[in-house]
């Protein structure tokens, strides 16, 4: 059977086609302001890319903030369960998952069978989310994919104490004005968000092995900072 998963997030919409356990095709587009439209567009483009028709698909599951706007889905499920299932599928040994999304950060603990045993999500504010990294990368005039690498160059990370995105940004501006170098400030930014995530991990009670999912897992600087604070190795997935 071919099955389809659609994730309408706060920034991007993604879809993946599975045939039994093999990935047939995947696709990603920006959401824009209308998540229903984005879902339709994503679906059409994906079908085209894969060269199949809607009738060929046995089951469709939607997730993400726009999950309920996908009217052609058989079921809407929250990201928490999907992250759990996805990681269990790819790395069945993992027990703790860290995901930093555009809008939300979450830590999920799985039981031995890959079911979600418990989870926490960040509170309302944007600090500790992917949005925070975006804002800070812009403030440092760095491309987001280089941001983590830049952090790794630092020998003496700057101190950033604010837990609020807006305050942290002005703190950074004053560090720049003081002439601290970019690597150190960037590293400080990564440490600050890592500390915030680490406290969520500790609150939930970390069970190793730990994995990180989502786009931010590509940020080596953050993975490194988290590994240091949590004193554990963090595995990442290519997806």
């Amino acid at each position, binding site marked *: 059977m071919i099955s389809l998963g659609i994730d309408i997030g706060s920034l991007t919409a993604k879809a993946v086609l599975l045939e039994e356990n093999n990935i047939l095709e995947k696709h990603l587009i920006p959401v824009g302001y209308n998540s229903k439209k984005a879902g339709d567009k994503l679906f059409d483009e994906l079908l085209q890319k894969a060269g199949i028709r809607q009738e060929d698909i046995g089951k469709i599951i939607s997730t993400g903030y726009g999950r309920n706007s996908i009217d052609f889905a058989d079921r809407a499920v929250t990201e928490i369960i999907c992250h759990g299932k996805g990681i269990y599928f790819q790395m069945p040994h993992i027990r703790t998952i860290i995901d930093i999304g555009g809008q*939300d950060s979450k830590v999920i603990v799985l039981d031995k069978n890959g079911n979600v045993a418990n989870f926490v999500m960040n509170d309302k504010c944007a600090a500790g989310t992917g949005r925070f990294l975006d804002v800070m990368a812009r403030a440092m005039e760095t491309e987001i994919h280089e941001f983590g690498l830049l952090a790794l160059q630092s020998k003496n990370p700057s101190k950033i104490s604010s837990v609020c995105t807006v305050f942290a940004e002005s703190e950074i501006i004053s560090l720049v004005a003081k002439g601290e170098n970019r690597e150190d400030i960037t590293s400080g930014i990564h440490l600050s968000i890592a500390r915030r995530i680490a406290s969520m991990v500790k609150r939930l*009670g970390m069970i190793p092995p730990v994995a990180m999912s989502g786009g931010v897992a590509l940020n080596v600087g953050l993975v490194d900072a988290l590994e240091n604070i949590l004193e554990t190795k963090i595995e990442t997935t290519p997806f």
Partner: protein
Amino acid sequence: MAERLKATRKMKSIMKWYYIEAKYARYIGKKVAWITSGGPVEPLIAMNIIPVYPENHGAMIGASKMGGRMSEFAEGLGYSSDVCSYTKNDITSSITKESPIKGGLPEPDMLICSNNICGTVLKWYEIQARRFNVPLFIYDTPFVHTEFTDEARGYVNEQTKEYIKFLEKHTGKKFNYKKMQKVGKLSLEAMRLWKNVLETAEHKPSPMTAFDAFFHLALIVTLRGKKVVVKYYRELLKELEERNRNNIGAVDNEKYRLLWDNLPIWFRMRWLSEKFASHQAALVADTYTQAWCGVIDYIDENDFLGSMGEAYTRIHLNVGVDQMADAIKRFIKQYDVDGLVMHSNRSCKPYSFGQYDIQNLLQDEDIPVLMIEADMTDERKFSESQAEARIDAFMEVIKQRRK
């Protein structure tokens, strides 16, 4: 969902007449006292003074979705956005007269403030005492970190005496100790009945949810000590017991049972109750409405005045987190719940501050905990889509654990 409780209509009518009486108090020769929700109201009832609760008014403002706007007005006057929204709503309403009740609250002749619920009320009542130029009595309750000491008992009992003197001075009448005896007994009886009402939710399926409790709470808060309260809760209890006999649940096909912590989110009651019901989950109990029957054991039926100091000092918000966590543990067992929903309330610091500690203390219970960030009346501090994602995920986890 089950039909609305029949008692609801009666309750609305009692509250309506209560506010009408308060409004025309002057014409019938009665005085009006504004009092905090945790304040010792019984002596007022014994003195025929009408108690009025700005916090109850605040809840109405929240339920009418006026809270955000009214908080904003107060912030414009210079109050910080971190100040409790009940306080801000009240300050706004006393200036603009905006209110779900026509003309706002009846103006006070005196103010009675007890800090057993928080420190905010002290400043709030001082501000209003200046605005209305009326006397203010502060009933100061020491915080019960671990135990209630003899020194604390002496301290609060002394204040009970001062309180009586204050009332005598500002009414020009002698305190009626005989009536006080009766009022004390009625108050205690009302608390016992309220406890029985809440305990009907032990039944599966539960005949009521916390959303019902939030509503039916109004009387035990405002008018305890009056006969009408006892009569009303007797009726409500009968109706709920009847439901239990017929196995009528408040939520259709109740499958999951949850416990709520903190004040309600007044402006999203319906949305939340439907959201949980759609997952076949009933909020069967909450720590908030339980607070009005949590100190029964400390009250001496034959000496209300002499024992109320201790009872008012030991209420839920005036004790350490260990005791708060113990109460939650008790409710988890008593109501056999599958999960705990904590409302992290931007307004109410004493209620929200220890929630993470409480979570840690609950680790042995092995039940999932959900945190919802909101405010009891300020819609600006709530994000529906965020709350929805968290509730859905939380319910998925609960369902998975059941499998």
